[in-house]
């Protein structure tokens, strides 16, 4: 089934997730196109993280469809590793890097490659691999920190390293959870530039609280509330929506 049945890269339809009677997602429908960048906003508990969990295979939806790559792959039947292999990368809210490895090794682990245990058992770092690592470190400005232990990096550096690891995976779709959290204003602006750059070749979904950052991104915005889509459109469009003002902006 290589036939793409829809033009969308990501297709979520009528997805619900219920935990013990609590509806974390309630008939959520959402599509992301190729090379599209989308910002997702919403108050705490709106279901942003659960949505990412469903897309990346961490949580199975109670009902609903989640398709990837033009409907070729059913995300509800695959595990996290397979989904990552298909080309969905995820950056967590709090930066999670492998603290006991150095910066280089973190990127190396993320690089797109055969990730089976036996392939890894009999492979060593080749010059080509080193070249890719250098390229990515250059881009996330961590070249000078390449031999430092990832756990010793500053918070902002860890965020950048994680973005670098995402790039190394060469995903078709990046899910980025609050990339600007804990960053200085300058770093935040830098991150926005970097994400826009990435979006030229791939699709990016950014979940964010910081309105200034969302404005910097200047992309289509989806507002989530109580597990479903409340409004969609440009930031100006959604910020003028009365319901949105009521539940989110004007609280």
């Amino acid at each position, binding site marked *: 089934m290589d036939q793409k049945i829809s033009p969308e890269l990501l297709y979520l339809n009528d997805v619900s997730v219920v*935990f*013990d009677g*609590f509806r*974390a997602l309630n008939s959520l429908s959402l599509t992301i196109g190729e090379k599209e960048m989308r910002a997702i906003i919403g108050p705490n508990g709106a279901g942003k*993280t*659960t949505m990412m969990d469903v897309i990346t295979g961490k949580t199975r939806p109670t009902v609903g469809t989640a398709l990837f790559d033009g409907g070729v792959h059913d995300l509800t039947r695959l595990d996290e590793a397979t989904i990552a292999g298909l080309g969905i990368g995820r950056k967590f809210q709090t930066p999670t890097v492998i603290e006991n490895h150095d910066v280089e090794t973190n990127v190396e682990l993320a690089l797109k490659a055969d990730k089976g245990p036996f392939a890894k058992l009999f492979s060593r770092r080749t010059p080509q691999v080193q070249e890719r690592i250098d390229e990515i470190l250059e881009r996330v400005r961590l070249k000078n920190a390449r031999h430092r232990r990832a756990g010793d990096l500053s918070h902002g550096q860890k965020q950048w390293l994680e973005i670098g690891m995402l790039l190394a995976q060469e995903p078709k779709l990046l899910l980025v959870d609050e990339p600007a959290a804990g960053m200085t204003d300058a770093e935040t602006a830098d991150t926005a530039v970097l994400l826009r750059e990435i979006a030229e070749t791939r699709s990016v979904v950014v979940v964010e609280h910081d309105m200034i950052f969302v404005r910097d991104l200047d992309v289509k915005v989806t507002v989530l509330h109580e597990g479903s889509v409340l409004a969609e459109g440009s930031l100006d469009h959604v910020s003028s929506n009365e319901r949105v003002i009521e539940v989110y902006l004007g609280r």
Partner: protein
Amino acid sequence: MTLLRILLCLVALAGVARAAEPQAIFDRLASTKYDDIEAGVGDLATSGLPAAADALSAALDGRLLVAPGKPALFKTPMGTTIDVATNAPAAAGADAGLKPVRVNNRIRRAVATAIGTLTLMSPDARARLRAAESVFRGRDPETLPALDKALAAEKDERVLAAMRRAKAAITLTTDAPEADKVAAVGLVAERGDQDGLVLLRGLSETAPAAVKSAAASAIQAIETRQAMLARVQDVAYGVSLGSVLLLAAVGLAITFGVMGVINMAHGEMVMLGAYTTYLVQDLLRTFAPGLMEGSLAIAVPAAFLVAGAVGVAIERLVIRHLYGRPLETLLATFGISLMLQQAVRSIFGPSNREVSTPDWLSGSLDLFGLTLTWNRVAIVLFALAVFFALQLVLKKTTLGLQVRAVTQNRRMASSMGIRTDRIDALTFGLGSGVAGMAGVALSQIDNVSPNLGQGYIIDSFMVVVFGGVGNLWGTLVGALTIGVANKLLEPFAGAVLGKIILLVMIILFIQKRPRGLFALKGRFVDA
């Protein structure tokens, strides 16, 4: 056949003796020949004297006094002397020269049968029922006339049925017509118990073919019923084992389930509880022997305090430093368990300590053919009491509220002014204290040795993990399920293989549902 002939002779003898005067009966009883005495016992039973039943039971204890030619007297348990012939108090000094009736086993049996016959006419229905049962067991054709008389007079359905079965049992020992015997087999089979089975098995050799085949099918029916009863008995044993597991595991459910702390020294808390029981009994024996019967009531709170205090100390000194590192906690508490075992071994010695069982817990309870020892029944009740008390503490007290708050969100609880470190210590103390109380119960059914706890720790973990962590109800269901499954597997697989099968099943179950039977679900659980 010889036996039958003797029995028939006895019936004949009894027929002759029935006409005897009271004094003739007393003279027989005063004889030195057991044959005479036995005949006398039969005569007394059928004499119609109102004091016959009391006199016969007095004979068993040597309280029936006789001498040739003198009126027989018996002493009541209260010490008054009664004249058998008149059933009125005898004159003082009337017992001079009288001697107790000589009694050997044969006489004892004859007396018991005779009393059985007599009580068949008792006004108390329960006494009549017991009498019918004893006639059934005795199967003495001699009692047939009395039984027939009683049957004619009987109104109570249950007693009537019991008497018919008793008659049937006697019929089977006589040379009654074949049809009667087949009917009798049917009646005996109604009992469906071991006594009926013994009787039917014993008869099949000489009986006519029809009786034999009736008996064979009756035996099969009884065996099926007995097998079912055995399953029910297994379930009862399972519940008993399950409540032992519940006692051992419920404290662990608090420390592991509620706090997330792996306490490998939990078994040693149980062991400390058992040794506390030993110490309490030792002290009572020396200083207040009168209180021995209540030793367990004193040991329960004492064990709670001792194990609880040790638990608090462990939490303060070790576990507090290891929160968030469950694997390290596991290792450290295993070390503590080794030290506690060795400490107890050094103080009390390596051998088992004797813990006595109070009289009120000895003996057993018979229930529809099931036998349950009282201490097992008590443990079931105790386990349930501890369980519900714990639920109450967690649900209704301030401590419980704070414990639940800290469990769900430590940081939030802390910022709301709950002293989380104190709550940790108290929760751990509570879990350990409950383990100590479990030790009191286990001291009644297991050897009190330094290794006591080791036997329960793996089972307890299995119960908690199987039932679902963080849920006391899961622990209850888990314990009872594992207990009953274990006992149901035992007859088929043997004790050891049954246990292995169960362990493997639990291991597989955990693979299927890693969070147990009653898992907490939600977005915060596996964060």
